[in-house]
C-alpha cells in the first residue's frame, strides 16, 4: 500500500514536469518512486544509489549493526534536510525527504553520537517541489516573514540582556531574561535546524554533551538565580550574543518547507508538554510560562502560514484547531501577571493539569496537519 502511494505522488510531480519516466513504468533504478536501500552497521553506511533525482526521495534504512543508529541527510554546512532517529538493531525505517538538486551527505550515526559515517549523495535534475502548490509556496514565504519579524526583536533584546549582565545589573538582567527568550522560543523549529547552535544557546545543563561547555541562556539563568553572582558571566554573555547573531543570520536565510512548518507547529507544543508544564525548562527562574506562551504563539504562527492550504484540504481540521487554540489561550490567560506571566511554582498541581489537558487537546489535531499537507 505505501509504495503505491509514494509512486503515485512521485508520478504526479513528474507529469507536471513533463511526462517522463512515469508513463514508461517508473522503473529507473534509484528513481524517486523506489526507496533507496541504506545498509547501516556499526562501521558502515552504504547507500544502494549515490545519486537520486530531485523531488521526494525515500530512504529505507536497515540497521544491521548492534548499536541503535540514526540516519541524516545533510546539505552543505550540515544543514539537516531530514533525519530518522532511534533505529534499533534489526529494524528498517524509512525517511521521506524532499531534496532539490545539489550535493548532500548522508550519514549513519551508530550509537547516535558524533559526526557519523558520511557518504556523498548527489541529487540531479529538477522536479516540481511540494511547494509548487501556490498555497503551500505562500505558506513558506509567509512563515519566513514571521521568522524575520522575530529575529528583528531577538537580536536587540539579547543585546540588552547581555549588556545588563555585563553591567552587573542582576535585577535588570532577570527582568530581561524571559523577554529575550520569548522571541527565541517562538521560532525554535527554525533554530533546531542548525545542529550545534541550539544547544549552545538554549541547552539545559543535563543535556550538554561530554566535552561541551554549558553556555547560553540557561547558564546565565543559573548564574542569575541560583548563585546570584554574575561577576564572571561576561564571557558567557558575549558567547550567547555571538551565537544568537549567527543563528539570526542563518534563520533569515532559511526557508522552511511546508512539512517542516507542520512538524514545527507540533514540536513546539511537545516542547510545552515535556519542558514547560513540568517546570524543567526554567528551573532556576521559574519563568516557564513565558516560554509556554511563546511556543504557543510560534505554533499558531506556523499554522497561520499553512492556513490557506489547510482550508483547501481540511476545513474541519482548521475549525478544530481554531477552537483548541482559543481554549489553550484562555486556559493560559488565567495566569497572566502584569505584562508577563505567573511563575511556574505559583501554579497548583490542578492548574498545571488543566494546562496539560488543553495542550494535549490542541496537539492531537495539530499532529494531523503534516499528513494533510503531504497528501495530494
Amino acid at each position, binding site marked *: 500500500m505505501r509504495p503505491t*502511494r509514494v509512486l503515485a505522488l512521485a508520478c504526479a510531480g513528474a507529469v507536471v514536469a513533463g511526462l517522463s519516466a512515469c508513463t514508461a513504468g517508473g522503473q529507473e533504478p534509484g528513481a524517486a518512486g523506489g526507496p533507496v536501500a541504506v545498509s547501516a552497521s556499526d562501521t558502515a553506511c552504504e547507500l544502494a544509489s549515490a545519486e537520486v533525482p530531485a523531488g521526494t526521495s525515500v530512504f529505507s534504512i536497515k540497521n544491521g549493526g548492534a548499536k541503535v543508529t540514526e540516519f541524516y541527510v545533510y546539505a552543505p554546512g550540515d544543514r539537516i534536510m531530514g533525519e530518522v532517529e532511534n533505529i534499533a538493531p*534489526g529494524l528498517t525505517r524509512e525517511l*521521506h525527504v524532499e531534496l532539490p538538486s545539489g550535493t548532500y551527505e548522508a550519514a549513519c550515526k551508530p550509537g547516535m553520537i558524533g559526526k557519523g559515517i558520511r557518504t556523498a549523495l548527489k541529487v540531479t535534475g529538477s522536479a516540481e517541489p511540494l511547494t509548487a502548490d501556490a498555497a503551500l509556496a505562500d505558506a513558506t514565504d509567509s512563515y519566513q516573514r514571521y521568522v524575520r519579524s522575530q529575529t528583528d526583536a531577538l537580536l536587540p533584546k539579547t543585546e540588552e540582556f547581555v549588556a545588563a549582565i555585563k553591567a552587573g545589573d542582576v535585577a535588570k538582567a532577570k527582568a530581561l531574561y524571559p523577554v529575550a527568550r520569548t522571541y527565541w522560543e517562538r521560532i525554535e523549529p527554525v533554530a533546531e535546524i542548525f545542529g550545534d547552535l541550539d544547544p549552545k544557546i538554549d541547552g539545559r545543563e543535563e543535556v550538554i554533551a561530554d566535552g561541551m561547555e554549558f553556555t547560553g541562556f540557561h547558564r546565565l539563568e543559573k548564574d542569575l538565580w541560583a548563585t546570584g553572582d554574575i561577576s564572571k558571566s561576561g564571557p558567557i554573555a558575549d558567547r550567547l550574543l555571538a551565537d544568537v547573531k549567527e543563528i539570526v543570520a542563518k534563520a533569515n536565510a532559511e526557508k522552511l518547507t511546508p512539512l517542516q512548518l507542520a512538524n514545527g507547529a507540533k514540536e513546539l507544543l511537545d516542547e510545552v508538554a515535556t519542558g514547560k508544564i513540568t517546570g524543567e525548562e526554567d528551573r532556576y527562574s521559574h519563568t516557564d510560562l513565558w516560554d509556554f506562551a511563546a511556543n504557543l504563539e510560534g505554533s499558531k504562527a506556523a499554522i497561520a502560514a499553512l492556513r490557506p492550504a489547510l482550508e483547501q484540504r481540511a476545513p474541519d481540521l482548521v475549525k478544530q484547531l481554531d477552537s*483548541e487554540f482559543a481554549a489553550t489561550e484562555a486556559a493560559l490567560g488565567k495566569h497572566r501577571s502584569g505584562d508577563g506571566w505567573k511563575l511556574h511554582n505559583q501554579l497548583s498541581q490542578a492548574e498545571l493539569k488543566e494546562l496539560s*489537558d488543553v495542550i*494535549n487537546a490542541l496537539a492531537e489535531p495539530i*499532529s*494531523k496537519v503534516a499528513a494533510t*499537507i*503531504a497528501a495530494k
Partner: protein
Amino acid sequence: MSESRVSRRRVMTLAGLGVAGVAGAAASAGALVRGAIDAPAAAQEAAGAVPFYGDHQAGIVTPAQDRLHFVAFDVITKSRERLVDLLQEWTQAAARMTAGRDAGAIGAVNGAPEAPPDDTGEALDLPPSGLTITVGFGPTLFRDATGADRFGIAAKRPPALADLPRFPHDALDPAISGGDLCVQACAHDPQVAVHAIRNLARIGMGVVSVRWSQLGFGRTSSTSTAQATPRNLFGFKDGTANLKAEETDLLRDQLWVQPGDGPDWMTGGSYLVTRKIRMLIETWDRSPLAEQEAIIGRTKGTGAPLGRQREFDEIDLAAKGADGQPAVPVDSHVRLAHHSVNGGARLLRRGYNFVDGSDGLGRLNAGLFFIAYQRDPRKQFVPIQRSLAGSDALNEYLRHVSSGLFACPRGVRDGGDYLGRALFE
C-alpha cells in the same frame, strides 16, 4: 483496507521470515512455555480472544485474567456530541483490540508516513491474550460538583449510583479516587492490557483526561469454578466464596441490574466499586501464623475455613473451638464479609495485587486493587464494607487510599451499537 481485518495473530504467522516474524515466533514460544506449566488448553485460552459483543460487557464474569490496567478519566469537553463520538470511537477500538487487531482501522504501520499511526504498535505480533475492555460511568458524569447537569443525562442517573458514604479508617486521596469514566482492561499479557488503555487514552485526547490509573498483576479472585483460587499479597487464598460465572441464579439476583431496578439503560449492566487497599506488608509479615489465620478466618495452607477441613467447605460461623470461643473469630475478615451476616449480600470480586515500587521509607508500596461488581452497591458493597470497616481485625494492616464507583452499562450488541448508547439516545 484488508490489512485491518487480519488479526495480529494471523500477521504473526503470515509474516514468515520478516522481522515481525522473528519477534512473533518469540512471543508465541513464550506463550507455549507458560502454557506447559499449566495445561496446553489453558495456553490456548490465554492467547485467544474473548468475544466483545454480547448482552453483558465482557470483563465481569469472564474468567479473571492475570493482568490489569485500570484507568479513570475526567471528561474535559462540555460537548455532549464529542462525548458520544468518543464512546463510539472507543467501542470500535475496543472491538478491534479485543480481537487482537490494531486500535485504528489503518494500523500501526500502514498509514501515511507523515501522520502519527492510529495504533501505537507495542502489541504488534502479540495474540489477543484474553483482552477484555469494560467501561463504566461515574456519578460526576451526571452532575458535577456544583450540581450542574453536564450532558443532559442527570435525570437518568440511577439511584443505585449513590455516592459511597465515608467509612471508618478511610484514608482516601482525592487525586486517585473517582472519575467521570473508567476503563478496566484485563489480559493475560500486561503489554496487551497497557496497549489497550494507552490507545483509548490517545483516542480520547481533548475529550477526556486521565485522572488516575492502576496496574495490577496476579488476579486475587477466581470468577469461574474452573479456576483455582489465587492468593493475595498476605499469602492467603482470596475469593473462595466469590460469585462465579456458573451460578446463574445468583448472578441474576446479585450481579446484573434487572428490569425495574432503575432507569432502563442500566438493565443488563452492573455497578463497579474499586478500592485501592494498601497493605502494611512488613508488619503483617512479622505477625505469627496463628494470628494471621485468626485475622483472616481461614488456614493459610489450604484456605479451609477455621474449624473445617477443605477450602470449599461451608464456613460454620456457629462452631466453637476447644476453648469454647467461636472457631471463626468474631472479628475475623471472612466472618464479617460473609453473606449470612450481611443480609445475603454478595459481590463478584475480580481484584488484583499491585506493587507500586517502594514508598521512600523502604516499605513495599503494595496491596490489593479491589474490584467488585454488583446489582446495587447500596445493598451490597456499602453494608459489607460498613461491617468490615467497623471491626475487621484486618484493618490494622490495611489503608483504603482510593475509591471509585461506576455504572457499567449493558454490553454492546453488534457493530451498529456502542457503549452507553441507551443512556445517550
